[in-house]
């Protein structure tokens, strides 16, 4: 076993490692029934010693009778026993008390010397001021100090209050400018030459910790971090400052929910997907619309993972709200490029939503009400430190409001949604952790019509983590995700219908992580997903309906993947990550596949034959390698350069011929005709820290090529169409751009600003003239918005009051204007020619919000918060859409704005 450990603690001011034994300080006064404070003052007066501790820990508890004569250490032994507080007496006479921080003691050393734990106060940062670290921790045996080669520190990083592992924490060695990032299980491993260093543990939304180590040999340091509760506690968010330097991936963005909750909200709801839109390179087609576009990718090219399972519709109410309540989210990672090999199945990005495990120490919760929803979150241990759960729920009460508004338009409308999410996590043993998670969401709306729209998401996920050793662990996960939507109408009873669509997937994933000695890291695994899609069933909705059931044949498929990824530290300034994912896709029967005359465009009239495939027979298979390669050059201790290439393949597509994704779009698997979409992206990035690492800057450029994207013939019918290949036009995409960002995440004032230049051009690829769009020339996709500026600012006036602002500007999206009008059959029809030739006006919006917290007494039952937000405070009438109407024999253009005025909202919530 190669576990090595801490040793004693030596003062920074030492010259040479003097190994004095700790002196004994006798207690010569009457200590019984003294408060701890009194005892400390007396001890400091009598002896040349100093205590470091937090007074609150000992409030109210008096010293007992520990016999006579006693020493200071004996009193502390007795008084602190069972309290979870540890102490250390340094040779110089500093007595340091720590809470909740465990370090294993070296087997090779005697116990007396190593009764030590690093003290929180010394390693954290308070306010704007960093308390100088004055202690060193020995790792390994000092006798090994002159041994050649590197030594490795590894360990686990967890939340102090919940015991949850924290992924993505940067462990950074400032002297050498090397670092590591904790993996999904909170494990990290960093190796460096023997010597004295300062290690910094930081994570967005967490209090930064700093440790000084004397590295003599391999050892382990576990760290507990505390989250920054803004504005209850004064603190700093130290974003992934050094993480950016250390990560391999270009285009990775981590969003913590703590930060997210500081941003102004629209309609009082903090929203995960809306906050993703502030990331450079991420765009949205229109205000409040569903779906987002990453680096020129279409909305269906984003893999949105919740509990590791795909979430097929991440929106409520057309996209005005995200379907996942922020209460359950721990953090969110967006991969815009440099997608790790363990992810696959979508071309443009991965948005991995990681939920909380639930509080393992105590019952806690949060409840609140906004103009749109009411929500509740409860988390609690089932077995302390072993098993916990978290449950969140959110629901609109808009129906209740609609019914009370004296407006027939609204009275006949209804819009309702809810979502429920929960997780139970259980540590079967030290090496086996089990998680069960579930998620349900539902939307139903009817907007002044007789047609009811309803859609649901359901996700169930079971995950078992097994640790073969500290350096080798596996994660086995099984999940199922389902998305259903139905449209129904009973306006005319005899014509009452229901259209039902659903997509179901069940997946199994085995993921192995191995950290061999040194600084290399390996990840490999396999994934199997079975898909089943009901493309659309048209059914009678009542007994008297004369609707003939009309069913489009179901689609089934199996997608498999194998991957291997290795990260290697080539030298102190270069690290390389090389990965390969091999994915295969099998479209399975039963199915009848039409054959078309190959010399003519695919149409119902050019069908020549039908081939029937039996159950589970392979209709068509696709397979291919996906390379994922990254290189990270550390240029100096404050700058780095990265280069990245990745290929992605996508077998599941969203059929949509509307500008934005709508809830009634249907999912479609690759099949006999529909080829997988393939994306290739190359990206370069330069990252630099300025002003003593307080400002982080980055510049990234990318070029991307996407083949087999989908477009559609004029007026294509995508719903209830059994021959969808007759409506599809194959298009190729070409995207390129540059993203600049600068941010400061320290102190009372935090801000960020980003500028994106990006283009996405598409071109139809077909041998048939009739199918060409814009004569086969390159033209901008409807989400091509070249210029984009976003900025956020947050200022903490006090622990109870904070102010934030956010600003967004972007070029207007392309639109197609009619080229002319004509009349046929007495009807005036606009005639559209060149697609996306014009643009709507530019978009610009400023939002403000204030957060006020109630009484800060920590022992109060509930902590209330008020959030006051104003959306679009400038009241700018941003154009949402442009349309044309015939009026007095002339075609007139109209600009429609949906949020043409400032929209205030107030949210009340409280933590308990």
């Amino acid at each position, binding site marked *: 076993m190669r576990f090595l450990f801490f040793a004693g603690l030596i003062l920074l001011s030492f010259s040479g490692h003097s190994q004095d034994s700790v002196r004994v300080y006798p207690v010569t006064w009457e200590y019984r029934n003294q408060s701890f404070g009194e005892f400390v003052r007396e001890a400091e007066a009598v002896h040349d010693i100093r205590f470091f501790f937090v007074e609150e820990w000992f409030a109210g508890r008096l010293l007992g009778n520990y016999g006579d004569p006693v020493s200071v250490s004996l009193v502390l032994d007795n008084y602190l026993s069972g309290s979870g507080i540890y102490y250390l007496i340094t040779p110089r006479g500093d007595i340091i008390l720590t809470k909740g921080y465990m370090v294993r003691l070296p087997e090779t050393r005697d116990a007396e010397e190593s009764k030590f734990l690093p003290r929180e106060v010394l390693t954290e940062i308070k306010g704007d001021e960093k308390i100088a670290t004055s202690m060193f921790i020995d790792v390994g045996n000092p006798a090994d100090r002159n041994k050649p080669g590197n030594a490795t520190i590894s360990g686990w990083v967890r939340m102090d209050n919940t015991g949850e592992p924290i992924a993505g924490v940067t462990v950074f060695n400032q002297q050498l400018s090397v670092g590591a990032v904790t993996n999904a299980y909170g494990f990290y491993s960093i190796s460096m030459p023997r010597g004295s260093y300062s290690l910094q543990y930081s994570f967005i939304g967490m209090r930064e910790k700093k440790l000084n180590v004397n590295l003599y040999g391999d050892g382990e340091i576990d760290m507990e971090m505390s989250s920054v509760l803004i504005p209850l506690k004064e603190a700093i968010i130290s974003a992934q400052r050094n993480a950016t330097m250390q990560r391999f991936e270009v285009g990775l963005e981590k969003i913590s929910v703590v930060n997210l909750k500081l941003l102004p909200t629209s309609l009082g709801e903090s929203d995960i997907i809306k906050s993703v839109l502030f990331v450079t390179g991420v765009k949205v087609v229109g205000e409040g619309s569903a779906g987002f576009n990453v680096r020129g990718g279409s909305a269906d090219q984003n893999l949105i993972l919740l509990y590791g399972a795909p979430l097929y519709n991440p929106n409520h109410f057309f996209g005005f709200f995200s379907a996942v309540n922020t209460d359950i989210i721990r953090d969110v990672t967006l991969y815009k490029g440099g997608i790790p090999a363990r992810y696959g199945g979508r071309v443009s990005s991965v948005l991995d939503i990681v939920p909380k495990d639930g509080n393992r120490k105590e019952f806690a919760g949060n409840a609140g009400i906004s103009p749109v929803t009411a929500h509740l979150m409860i988390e609690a241990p089932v077995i302390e430190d072993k098993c916990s759960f978290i449950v969140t729920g959110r629901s609109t009460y808009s129906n209740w409001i609609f019914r009370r508004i004296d407006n027939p338009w609204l009275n006949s409308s209804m819009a309702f949604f809810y979502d429920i999410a929960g997780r139970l996590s259980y540590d079967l043993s030290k090496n086996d952790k089990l998680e069960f998670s579930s998620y349900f969401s539902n939307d139903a709306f009817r907007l002044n019509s007789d047609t009811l729209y309803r859609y649901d998401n359901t996700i169930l996920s079971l995950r078992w983590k097994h640790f073969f050793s500290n350096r080798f662990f596996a994660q086995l996960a099984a999940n199922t995700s389902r998305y259903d939507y139905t449209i129904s109408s009973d306006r005319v009873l005899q014509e009452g219908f229901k259209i039902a669509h659903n997509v179901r997937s069940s997946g199994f994933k085995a993921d192995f992580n191995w950290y061999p000695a040194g600084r290399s890291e390996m990840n490999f695994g396999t994934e199997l997903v079975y898909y089943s899609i009901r493309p659309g069933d048209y059914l009678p909705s009542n007994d008297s309906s004369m609707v003939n059931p009309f069913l489009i044949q179901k689609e089934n498929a199996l997608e498999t993947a194998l991957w291997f990824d290795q990260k290697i530290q080539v030298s102190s300034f270069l690290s390389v990550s090389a990965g390969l994912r091999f994915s295969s896709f099998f479209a399975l029967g039963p199915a009848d596949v039409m054959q078309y005359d190959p010399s003519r465009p695919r149409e119902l009239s050019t069908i020549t034959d039908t081939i029937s495939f039996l159950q589970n027979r392979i209709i068509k298979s696709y397979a291919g390698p996906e390379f994922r390669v990254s290189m990270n050059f550390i240029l100096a201790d404050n700058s780095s350069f990265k280069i990245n290439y990745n290929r992605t393949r996508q077998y599941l597509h969203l059929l949509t011929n509307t*500008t934005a994704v709508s809830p009634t779009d249907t999912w479609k698997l690759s099949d006999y005709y529909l080829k997988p979409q393939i994306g290739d992206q190359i990206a370069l990035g330069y990252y630099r820290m300025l002003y003593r690492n307080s400002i982080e800057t980055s510049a990234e450029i990318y070029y991307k090529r996407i083949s087999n994207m989908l477009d559609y013939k004029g007026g294509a019918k995508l719903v209830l169409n059994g021959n969808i290949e007759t409506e599809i036009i194959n298009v190729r995409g070409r995207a390129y751009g540059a993203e600049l960002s600068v941010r400061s995440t320290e102190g009372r004032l935090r801000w960020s600003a980003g500028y994106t230049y990006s283009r996405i051009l598409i071109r139809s690829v077909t041998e048939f003239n009739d199918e060409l769009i814009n004569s086969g020339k390159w033209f901008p996709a409807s989400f091509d918005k070249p210029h984009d500026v976003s900025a956020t600012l947050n200022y903490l006036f006090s622990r109870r009051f904070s102010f934030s602002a956010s600003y967004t500007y972007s070029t207007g999206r392309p639109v197609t204007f009619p080229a002319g009008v004509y009349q046929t059959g*007495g009807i005036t029809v606009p005639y559209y020619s060149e697609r996306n030739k*014009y643009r709507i006006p530019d978009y610009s919006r400023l939002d403000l919000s204030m957060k006020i917290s109630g009484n800060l007494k920590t022992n109060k039952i509930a902590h209330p918060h008020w959030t006051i937000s104003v959306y679009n405070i400038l009241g700018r009438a941003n154009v949402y859409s442009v349309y044309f109407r015939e009026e007095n024999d002339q075609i007139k253009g109209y600009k429609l704005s949906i949020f043409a005025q400032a929209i205030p909202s107030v949210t009340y919530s409280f933590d308990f």
Partner: protein
Amino acid sequence: MILLFAGCTIEFKPEIMEDKELLVVSGLITDQAVSNRVVLSRSTPIGNQIISNALTGALVTVTDENGVVTTLTETSPGIYSTDSTTFRGRVGGHYALNIFAEGGNYETDFVEMKPVPQIGALYYEKVVITASTDSSRIDEGCRIYLDSYDPTGKCLFFRWGFVETWEYHIPYPVVNSKCWATERSDRILIKNTSVYNQARISKYPVIFITNRTTRLQIKYSILVNQYSITETEYNFWEKVQSVNENVGGLYDMTPMAIPGNIRCTSRPEETVLGYFSVSAVAEKRLFVEDQFLGLPHFYTYCVTDTLTGFLPEEGLNSSYWVVDDNGNEIPPWWVITTYRECGDCVTDAERIKPDYWDDF
């Protein structure tokens, strides 16, 4: 959610430079003993006044499946008609259109004339309109519905057109105070019954008449034509409908050119707009003579001035009109209007009573 309605709409003048003028064909061959017409025109570039840009001097022929060619004659600019005495469409017949115009040859495939059932019922219902500003006031409008049924099940795709005629009165003692206005449908009315187990149409909403026009004032009539169209034609109208209902929103279909059934054989890349339609026709008329609540006074704006003593000759019946002549009284006085339609209903309609007006 309420906040979603905080939007606004602003008119704007699009800066568009488009000058393409494409051939537009609009034709209909029926089984009625009437003159069938094919209208040829060019499309109007956007931003221009929509004028009938007639295409004259074309050679237009209709060929049936037996090879019988009928040449249409240009009866007025751009309008090419069959002779009602020599040509009449046959149910079950197939017809193709051929055009030679401006050096181009245009043609369609043969289109079958499908039989059409009679319109089963044409009826109306009063609809209560609650003004959004004042919920205590009840106004009534009228919605017209139709039922149809094809027991043979041959007619699966229906299309309707209508002509509205209504009598209205100007409330002033003028010569032309009683008129009949006529308007043709300008909307797409289609229904696909192929998804049902019978070709039955129940309570299809033909038109909603608000109380904001003079239609419900005295007496109203609607003549509905029912066509039996092919699936291809149905798909064409469905696409036109989706493009026409486009409000530029994010959930509208991506706007695109909608191909009709006419192609240019001499220049295959040329886009031809419009549709050549072949159908049997069934028609039915409905009269509405009823009391509707809350009809507004339509002429509140009319009275411009009351003149006494002297009626200026200058501008009479060109810039002002007399709606109440009391020139014989002492002192004489006249009620005048500057709105011509208030003094003469012929401005917007016809004075001649349609011959069918009282026969029901």
